[in-house]
């Protein structure tokens, strides 16, 4: 028995030695982007780490060179759409917004309160609002290549800027609702988001190195998907993994979780479009 305990202790040491993020630095075309941040006071985590720090060297490398980053195909498509007239107005995004770089910083404050809607809107919802209101065109589907191209392109303008959502006013309620869901254990497996991404971040869950579940890299190119995908698609996968009934993309619940995730990751740098496993 004592021997068994000794062996256990040795195993525990071995596990803790590999647990946690690696020490690699994210440098994209010569520009370093910080992948960790000190958590503000009262935050459930001591230090915040980008999901990039939990990935293999091979996956990390794909994000370190924009020519290697497979999400850049979507960005190229986004550029094409940006200049393309659409709808009854015959206007393109560029006609009103000018160069897409004018939207630098926008991704970092998502989701953002809309006075008109009386609720927060995610980047996808803002884009569709503008398409319907300004272009007078048909809105895009959440996971369409058009939407992913545009969210990737607009998000890229904020790459390297800190996540800084504004949770004042009506946002507080949404953030609180998101937090409530984050800590609710659900599904046949009875997992909350926090079960894996707070209590066990850094450890291996079968073949997966659990990250903190940060949202700063979305939309992300996921190797498993062989495609770029939205945060809501990823959240759907997580909920299904707990064998719970997923919410639909764009649902109030997922918007609330997105709002809460933004506050959990405040201070981390936007990495859109990131590359993950």
């Amino acid at each position, binding site marked *: 028995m004592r021997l068994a305990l000794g062996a256990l202790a040795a195993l525990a040491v071995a*596990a803790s030695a590999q647990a946690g993020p690696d020490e690699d630095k994210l440098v994209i075309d010569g520009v370093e982007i910080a992948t960790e941040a000190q958590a503000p006071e009262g935050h459930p985590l001591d230090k915040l780490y980008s999901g990039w720090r939990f990935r293999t060297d091979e996956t990390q490398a794909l994000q370190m060179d924009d020519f290697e980053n497979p999400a850049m195909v979507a960005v190229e498509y986004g550029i094409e759409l940006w200049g393309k007239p659409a709808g009854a107005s015959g206007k393109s995004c560029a006609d009103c917004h000018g160069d897409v770089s004018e939207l630098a910083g926008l991704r970092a404050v998502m989701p953002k309160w809309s006075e008109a809607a009386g609720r927060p809107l995610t980047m996808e919802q803002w884009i569709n609002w503008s398409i319907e209101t300004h272009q007078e065109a048909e809105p895009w589907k959440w996971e369409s290549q058009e939407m992913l191209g545009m969210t990737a392109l607009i998000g890229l303008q904020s790459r390297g800027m800190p996540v800084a959502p504004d949770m004042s006013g009506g946002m507080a309620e949404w953030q609180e609702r998101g937090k409530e869901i984050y800590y609710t254990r*659900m599904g046949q497996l*009875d997992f909350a988001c926090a*079960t894996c991404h707070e209590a066990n971040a850094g450890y*291996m869950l079968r073949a997966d190195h659990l990250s903190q579940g940060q949202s700063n890299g979305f939309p992300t190119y996921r190797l498993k998907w062989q495609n770029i995908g939205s945060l809501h698609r990823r959240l759907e996968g997580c909920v299904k993994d707990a064998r*719970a009934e997923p919410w639909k993309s764009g649902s109030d619940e997922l918007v609330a979780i997105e709002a809460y995730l933004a506050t959990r990751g405040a201070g981390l740098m936007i990495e859109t479009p990131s590359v993950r496993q």
Partner: protein
Amino acid sequence: MRARLIAIAIIGAAGASAAAEVAPLAVSFTDGAVAESLTGVAGDPAEGRKAVFTRSMGNCLACHQNSEMEEQPFHGEIGPPLDGVADRWTVEELRGIIVNAKMMFEGTAMPAFYRDPSQAIRIGKQYEGKTILTAQQVEDVVAYLATLKE
């Protein structure tokens, strides 16, 4: 005639074991342990071993390292290793931990493998009315774990 009698006896035994199966809500815990077999049928360690590594069954390897099945790739690190687990826990305690570990370890990440599905929040449609493991699979896993001595 003899063959028919044996067949009747087997059917009788199967019928009795099904009737004797303890429903999830009827499982009785004492300090986190479950003394009574859930089925009255001895667990099969070989079946239990399979349930431990198979992702659609127990998938215990998702969280637990287990030297006895090194041929299986990817052992998790969330829970303690299974090595020597039978030295640390009795069969009754192991059964209790598999059925619902929260009865022994409050707040543990470990799922309850034989919990009444109505207690789950927002359970996925395809899992409605189902426990993660069947009563017999729990007994099989317990029988396998009981072999893990150092």
